[in-house]
């Protein structure tokens, strides 16, 4: 029988607890905890729709057990936020540049973009092509996503409060 144990995760700075079988993935746990901003696309680590930030780096939450995430703060799309009313620069840029069509890949895409910007605040087009290589989008052809990340990068650098 599957062993079910409570597991407490830190999600977007808040402690949340769930009774998790030992084979429950982080993706399943997050959605069970109503974090519907995390999307499920393939459950095999092929598409990136379920990406979250752990230690500032994008991780496919379908490839990690919930129990393994204990003690590792998790950031979802909801956690990409700014104080006050302003939208996070990535979110604002994705909206303004028309980078969102069906939108299903977008939570993972923005997490991947943030992960890339954490390591490289001013990526070139080629670096963006490589940095987003693990996130599939079937609608946009990626062009406007590159435009959005470029715009967000300049605001994050210029604004100084990323």
């Amino acid at each position, binding site marked *: 029988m599957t062993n079910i144990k409570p597991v407490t995760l830190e999600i977007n700075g808040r402690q949340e607890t769930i009774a998790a079988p030992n084979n429950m993935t982080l993706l399943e746990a997050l959605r069970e905890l109503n974090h519907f901003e995390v*999307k499920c696309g393939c459950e095999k680590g092929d598409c990136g729709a379920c990406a979250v930030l752990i230690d500032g780096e994008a991780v496919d939450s379908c490839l990690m057990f919930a129990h393994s995430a204990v003690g590792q703060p998790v950031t979802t799309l909801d956690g990409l936020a700014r104080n006050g009313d302003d939208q996070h620069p990535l979110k604002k840029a994705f909206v303004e540049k*028309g980078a*969102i069509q*069906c939108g299903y890949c977008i939570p993972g895409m923005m997490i991947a973009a943030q992960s890339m910007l954490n390591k490289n605040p001013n990526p070139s087009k080629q670096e963006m092509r490589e940095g987003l290589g693990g996130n599939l989008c079937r609608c946009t052809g990626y*062009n406007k996503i590159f435009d959005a990340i470029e715009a967000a990068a300049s605001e994050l650098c210029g604004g100084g409060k990323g």
Partner: protein
Amino acid sequence: MDMPNKKYPLPRTEEKHLHQVGKPLVRTDARGKSEGKTRYAGDYVMPNMLHAIVLRAPMASATLKRIDASRARALPGVACILTGDDTSAHDAATDLPGQTGRQRLNTDNQILVRTRVRYHGEPLALIAAETRAIAEKARAMIEFELEPLEGVYDPEEALKPGAPIVQSHDNIVGSHKIRKGDIEKAFKDADHIVEKTYRTQFIEHAFLEPEVGMAWVDENDVVNIRVSTQVIEHFRTIAEAIGVAHNRVRILGALVGGGFGGKEDITVEVYLALLALATQRPVKMVYTREDSWFGHGKRHPFVIKYRTGVTSEGKITGSKIDIVADAGAYVFLSPYVLLYCALASPGPYRVDNLQVDSVAVATNNMFTSAFRGFGACQAAIAHEQQMDELANTIGMDRVEFRRKNYLKKGEPIATGFCVESEVWTEQCVDQAMEALGDKSPARGPLRIGQGVAAYQQSYGRLTMMHDTSECWVGIEMDGTVVVRSGVTDIGAGQGSALCQIAGELLGVPLERTVIYNSDSAVTPLAGTSTASRALYMTGMACKTAASALRERMIKRAAKELGVQIHHVDLANSKAFVVGRTEEFITLKELVGHCARDGIHRSELAQFNAPFTDPIDPETGQGRVHPDYVYGAQAIEVAVDTDTGEVTVLKSVAAHDIGQCINRAAVEGQIEGGTAMGIGYALSEELIYKQGQLMTPSFSEYLIPTAEDTPLEHTSIILESRSGLGPFGAKGIGEPALTPVAPAVANAIADAIGARVLDFPVTPEKILKALEASTAVTT
């Protein structure tokens, strides 16, 4: 980027004094999606909800000797298991989406296998349980016995006498003929005849959101189904499949995580409805990615043979075209996809002597159905490669050869119908090639090639289907605007476009409009988001409703402002005197006057497409579609002659879309279509062996990633304002894809001096073609 147009001065959007139509506005759905607040169909839960899954047949052709779910049913936590015996009274129509009530005979498919398994993955049983884990455990406990039956996996084999029968008596599930002019004379008049056979592959839609839905039965015995779909009008077909009245099924759409034709047919709806009725509890079904490979029809592989006559001066004398499509195990939309291909097969060219014979053939492969481009894509892959082969044969430049043969406005297409809108193929090809510029220099093992492809793609459904669309537009007491339309928003901004149209006519900015859509019970039925028809049909319905409302508002405002009706305009939430904007009344005040006077502040309108009878089956002559889109794609590639690897260096798309409603959304369609077409040409292929899918993951079925996008891309958007849609719009959803794959193939052939006739054009095939061409020349 919007290119200046030197050769062909065109009317610009700005000249028409439109306030928001044509502008690159932020779509109304963008903000919610950016915040992760948008609820897709899979993001809903209900109290007491069950989780359902499907048991699928592990082989493609077999007899179900026995199925026994008694052990599985006894598992604690299992609420319901249905097998073929439980659904024996019903079939699911696979024919045209329910809107028209048209249906061919004997094309229905079984909901669950009763005795005959016809394709790998065909559903054997439905399982609903308290948790998904229990459902999975129960699925493994269902006992069944399959006896393999000889199957047939190649449509050309399936046509031979004595082949195993999959459907009907001869495996033919659709056929179309076109007869025009005198084909024998055409070949006599030709200086050269070019014969080639082009093959295309099975393709997957690969929307990121797998099929998903939830159903519950309410206090009025209405089966409510919230589902990711392109077509809410399926409620009628679903009602018939489950044996209830049409008004007892309600489809609530949600914003769809990609469709591309793959959510045009019914997916999980009937399963959910049956389980909800059986258990009287809410039931949710979430397809895994693996389910999705088996859960919806694929793009048809086609074999297209051309025999084309041409004069030394470059005039096509005639074409004989034979088309065979693999329909897979069930009919679904195959006959219509085939018709689109047959009609498009001569391309956007004047071919007066034409003979087309086409068949869609049942096999034990996965069934095939709608996919963006709907048969016209496969036709374009063939006709545009054939055009290059013809040009090469007579030693003429590819663009000049096309120029001598372009179909012009008012000339008859393959079916004899004369297109009334602008036909700007020539402008699009010229501008695309001009923007592509000179070839990049070759270096090392890299050879550079350029290719172009033109197309003709319909927008709007078949005119024999008598397509209609309804829309409701109203103004609230504070001057904000509400639009109600059944339209499903599959990611292209279908809803936002209607807000923009209503806002334009009522002078209300986009942020003060809202749309309620995609609910078969409470939003007026608008028809499907398929066939590049959504903007055309729902846009016209919205425009008709908003125009009537505008007229009433202006009439009342004129009285208030003391001027004649034609001196009043609406903008920025005000009614004002033209030329004297300081004399105005706010829309809020105006609506108040209307309310006091009993003037109706909303309007329900219906728009009808052109209606025709079906075309003549012997000649294929008649009207098939409302209208067509024309355009071109130009591509530059680098081919590594050591590895066969292809890099798309430059891409230019030029389309006459009639009129942009939202320019950014149009660019988005074009850029996304370009990527999808590159995948179609280079990397995507569902491989079936004896009907078994060999590539069921994104690590085996390769859609383009960010690394595969063209290094440079330009979209040239021409606006002839000649379309049948709102403000002269045509459509762009499908046209954005149609010319891309053949342009890539033509660029590769240009680079390596040899042609790969079988799609996709993989590195392996390129190296083989290079070897063969070297062997010939040395």
